[in-house]
């Protein structure tokens, strides 16, 4: 069990966590960043492009996470889970962390992928939303940081093929879980959000109809490191010609317990529609919406650009999706403008899933009370004047752990959290 002291701990290695860690480290404080996944970068590193500029998402994320990974004041624990945060004395927190074994020595792995080639096991690739396989010895994705291999021990058959071909002998099956106790002056929570599980709306047929996909699956299909060689229907490999988006899937919907607007779905769907029209110039893209909320800088122009490109916008609520024998999908919907029930046929349906709270953060504080808001996000106790402050003195929020927000807002939020954290460190040092 290791015991160490840092000025700050940042929980979560997405774009907000990275930004907060960098800001604190650049002010000469030591930061520990912990990430439960095998790579930092969060959801943003898996996106194709960002709205409304259509800049390459990976091109923005990777320099920032590389800077963070190389920063002398930042220590990163990937594959690690925070167990508990409690008060330690008057001004410190005691944090217990479990570092899961990767079965690869990070320092020695060159990312050559020979272990991947040698591994005989193939299981669904979680970074490609299970649309394609990956090996049990694998590099999470091509721009992962650290870009080193890991062994998926639950699916590994212990054949030893990876070890035999590894030129640096960095694979180590003797690794075990490590427990760490860390003392820190401040905590930044940057655990992000979860995406709504569309299986909670059975009438949309997600999981049952193979050509009904989530927006994150489509995001992967549009990324340069896509699972397929082009955009294809997962149900039969057909190049889709008529693609429909259903906005507000799992948001603004009391029937699934989430009445809140997710703030990003309109714009990411409009972005994907534009990218699809670039990838498949002959395709018809229809967006079924309740309202288009293009509220940010350049957002309305981005919406108008999509209209100009020929994206079809239909104000309508989808009642039901049914599947034809050939895999095509029939959407039954209420056309709000005409007040009539209509049916339309599409090759593929993309569910623009909403944002829901990641409630992991609340579990860490067993003897302290981290208040949550009515949507289960971490409550900002002073949302107007001090939006990063939580109900626990010295614990701050960065990014979408406190509510849905887009990437620029997450980065702004991380900036605010890091300033508050630095103030706290100075005040109580």
């Amino acid at each position, binding site marked *: 069990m290791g015991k160490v002291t840092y000025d700050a701990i940042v929980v979560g290695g997405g774009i907000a966590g990275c930004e907060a860690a960098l800001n604190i480290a650049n002010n000469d404080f030591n930061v520990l960043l912990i990430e439960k996944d095998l790579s930092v970068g969060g959801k943003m590193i898996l996106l194709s492009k960002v709205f409304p500029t259509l800049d390459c998402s990976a091109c923005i994320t990777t320099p920032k996470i590389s800077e963070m990974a190389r920063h002398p004041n930042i220590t990163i624990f990937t594959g690690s889970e925070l167990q508990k945060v409690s008060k330690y004395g008057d001004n410190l927190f005691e944090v217990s962390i479990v570092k899961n074994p990767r079965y690869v020595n990070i320092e020695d792995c060159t990312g050559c992928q020979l272990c991947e080639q040698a591994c005989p096991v*193939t299981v669904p690739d979680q970074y490609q939303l299970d649309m394609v*396989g990956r090996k049990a010895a694998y590099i999470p994705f091509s721009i992962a940081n650290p870009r080193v291999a890991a062994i998926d021990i639950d699916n*590994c058959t212990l054949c030893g093929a990876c070890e035999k071909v590894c030129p640096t002998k960095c*694979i180590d099956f003797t690794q075990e879980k490590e427990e760490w106790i860390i003392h820190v002056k401040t905590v930044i929570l940057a655990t992000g959000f979860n995406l709504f599980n569309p299986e909670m709306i059975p009438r949309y047929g997600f999981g049952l109809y193979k050509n009904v996909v989530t927006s994150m699956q489509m995001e992967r299909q549009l990324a340069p490191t896509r*699972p397929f060689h082009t955009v294809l229907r997962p*149900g039969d*490999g057909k190049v889709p010609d008529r693609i429909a988006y259903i906005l507000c899937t799992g948001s603004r919907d009391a029937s699934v317990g989430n009445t809140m607007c997710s703030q990003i779905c309109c714009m990411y769907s409009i972005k994907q529609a534009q990218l699809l029209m670039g990838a498949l110039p002959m395709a018809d893209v229809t967006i079924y919406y309740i309202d288009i909320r293009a509220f940010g800088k350049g957002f309305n122009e981005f919406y108008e650009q999509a209209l100009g490109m020929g994206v079809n916008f239909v104000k309508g609520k989808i009642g039901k999706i049914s599947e034809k024998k050939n895999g095509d999908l029939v959407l039954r919907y209420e056309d709000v403008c005409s007040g009539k029930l209509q049916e339309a046929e599409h090759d593929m349906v993309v569910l623009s899933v909403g944002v829901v709270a990641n409630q992991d953060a609340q579990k860490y504080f067993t003897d302290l009370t981290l208040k949550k808001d009515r949507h289960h996000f971490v409550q900002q106790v002073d949302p107007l004047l001090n939006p990063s402050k939580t109900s626990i003195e010295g614990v701050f929020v960065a990014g979408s752990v406190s509510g849905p927000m887009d990437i620029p807002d997450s980065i702004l939020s991380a900036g605010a959290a890091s300033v508050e954290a630095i103030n706290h460190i100075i005040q109580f040092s």
Partner: protein
Amino acid sequence: MDTEKGNTVKLLKEKRKVSTEAKEKLKEFTRTKKAIMNALNGEDLTIAQLSEKLSLPYNEVVYYLMSLLKFGLVQVGEIDDMDEYFTYKVVK
């Protein structure tokens, strides 16, 4: 430990059993991979043709074929006249 470097798997094998599920997954993938590679050996085929030949659902063929494409064992051929379905062939 240094003497074991490069062969640490035997130490884990003494402590941990491989799950039946993992073994089954390996068998299933190996079987399907072999069947797809054999089917594509003589001719270029579409997903629908592979599905018929192997008696596998379309979506399963997509998953396995795209995995083989990712691993560099299969490559993309021509698209049909309707611009709907690609053919796939073995990398030689």
